């Protein structure tokens, strides 16, 4: 029983950044804008959250600064792809490189370090000995992360804004004739996706009480994999995040036993995504207008 509790707790902790990023990514992709940017949003959010917490002494302010950082990067991506009609894949790669470059530059500039920031106030997740529930509630971003996916599902399927997002992502021309302001909806969806993914990054730096260079470590791409594996549905993408996190937890806990090489466990999300795209277990079909102008 104790082992199961520990396993679940660790799975949730690993899943939280995936959940935030996937929730944001689903929104942008359903609006028709490709989400290769999640990695950059997370890294940027992790950095600005650390910065906010460092200067204010409050992790709450830090989290807000994380959101702000994500909004800035998200808006930049939106301006490039929507106003200037930049190729969404290229702009996404640029945002990721920008995330890496700017965080490195300012890390060096502000803290004179090329590897990590000093320790900042963060949300402590409690010790591993505390019970599952109280341990997880110590860090408010954990319950928020679990709620964000159903919240985005509700937004997407139950609100007028969500209806517009889906219309814009499937058939922008038709949406226009119905009076939907395509540009405005897409701006909102992409900026929101930046804010959400950045919260995932903020979770990382506030949980570890510091920012380290490249700390998003490919999590944005795992979130993207979860989106595709979940066939662009928020709840299914959320489940995919939990599944990927569980596999990772299992690998960490089995590390001593050398049962499966860790590298093969790391491959799981990516292999499953390719399988989903190929259609061996039900074809993953993207939103119709994804990547188009």
């Amino acid at each position, binding site marked *: 029983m104790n082992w199961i509790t520990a396993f679940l707790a660790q799975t949730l902790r690993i899943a939280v950044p995936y959940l935030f990023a996937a929730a944001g990514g689903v929104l942008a992709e359903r609006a028709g804008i490709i989400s290769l940017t999640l990695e950059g949003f997370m890294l940027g959010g992790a950095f600005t959250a650390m910065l906010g917490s460092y200067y204010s002494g409050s992790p709450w302010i830090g989290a807000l600064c994380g959101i702000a950082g994500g909004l800035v990067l998200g808006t930049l991506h939106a301006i490039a792809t929507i106003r200037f*009609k930049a190729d969404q894949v*290229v702009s996404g790669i640029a945002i990721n490189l*920008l995330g890496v470059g*700017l965080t490195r530059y300012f890390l060096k500039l502000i803290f004179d370090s090329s590897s990590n920031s000093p320790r900042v106030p963060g949300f402590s997740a409690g010790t591993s000995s505390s019970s599952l529930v109280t341990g997880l509630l110590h860090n408010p971003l954990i319950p928020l992360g679990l709620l964000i996916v159903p919240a985005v599902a509700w937004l997407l399927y139950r609100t007028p804004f969500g209806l517009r997002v889906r219309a814009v992502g499937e058939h922008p021309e038709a949406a226009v004739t119905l009076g939907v302001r395509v540009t405005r909806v897409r701006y909102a969806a992409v900026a929101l996706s930046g804010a959400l993914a950045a919260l995932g990054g903020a979770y990382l730096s506030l949980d570890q009480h510091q920012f380290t260079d490249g700390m998003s470590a490919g999590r944005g791409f795992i979130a993207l994999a979860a989106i595709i594996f979940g066939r662009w549905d928020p709840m299914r993408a959320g489940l995919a995040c939990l599944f990927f996190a569980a596999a990772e937890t299992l690998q960490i806990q089995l590390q001593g036993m050398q049962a499966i*090489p860790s*590298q093969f466990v790391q491959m799981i999300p990516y292999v499953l995504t*390719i399988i989903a795209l190929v259609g061996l277990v039900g074809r993953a079909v993207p939103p119709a207008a994804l990547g188009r102008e």
Partner: protein
Amino acid sequence: MSDAAQTLIPTRTMRDRIFEAVLPPLVALLVSIVAGDLLILAVGQSPGAVYRLMLEGTWGNAYGFGQVLYKATTLTCTGLAVAVGLRAGLFNIGAEGQLAAGGLGAALVGLALPAGAPALVAAPLCMLAALCAGGAVGFVPGVLRAKWGAHEVITTIMLNFIVLAFLSWTMSTQLRVPETLHTSAIHAGALQRLATWLPSFHGSAANASLMIVLIAAILVDQYLFRTRGGFELRAVGLQPDAAENAGISVGRAWIRALTISGALAGLGGINFVLGYEHYYEEGFATGAGFLGIAVALVGRSNPLGVVLAALFFATLSQGGLAINALVPKQMVDALQGVVILAMAASVPEVRRLLASSRKGVR
């Protein structure tokens, strides 16, 4: 690439086409200089002094220039890889993994050959291995796209992680020299440093791979613009439906394009493995694959342009080290992102402006 713009091709004049090719990189350069100014001013330094230092540390002395050439060699390969894909209308984001696979392929053959093997036999065999390893990694997304319609942007990204994890596993199980991340030194196939012929390059990593990669660039140019196969690739890239109607097998062209693309990225592995360190090391060219996308974009998917763009990005990268005393070298990491973003935004913008000026003339 928007289909609408492609159908305009016959109506474009030579002047428009030159503008369309050259203006976006100039805009991107301008924007990145402005962004660079801001980052430099943020540290309280003078942009002029920093840029001068950057040029002196790269093109101003033989060692710095040698390092630029070394970095440009790898970037030319990954840039050509992305360019060939783009010509066929495909986005190969997998150069990162293909490059690593090519490096390991070259190293494995170099390790397998006996120590006395003549260089004229050993080096080509190692290069062939690099081409094949990279090509094999590129072949997979080609087939996935052609047979199942799985989008290559996603599959190549996913394959990057899969390939890198796989390589890391092979290294950890048998190849790694204990306590390091690299294999033991290869027995045969090593290439000469440029310093062997030009002593002033002493200490820099530039090596004979440079010549091989330049030859590869010329061959790619010939292939794309002078052969039937290359014509088919470009036709498929411009209008897949029209190409299909004209009797070109689009699926086969996709597979071919991504295999060639992967092979070119894989070839980049020889620069480090055969030319520089003489062993394979995990993460030996991290980032060069992604930067290849920038190189191909700024080089407008044209082999000559790719070589020039590779020199530009290599200068930026080496220049970061030169200016480190005044400005954190991490500035150039940020500038790379700025260049790509500005490039991506200005290509459609320039095209639109040219189109509207054409309308005005009529």
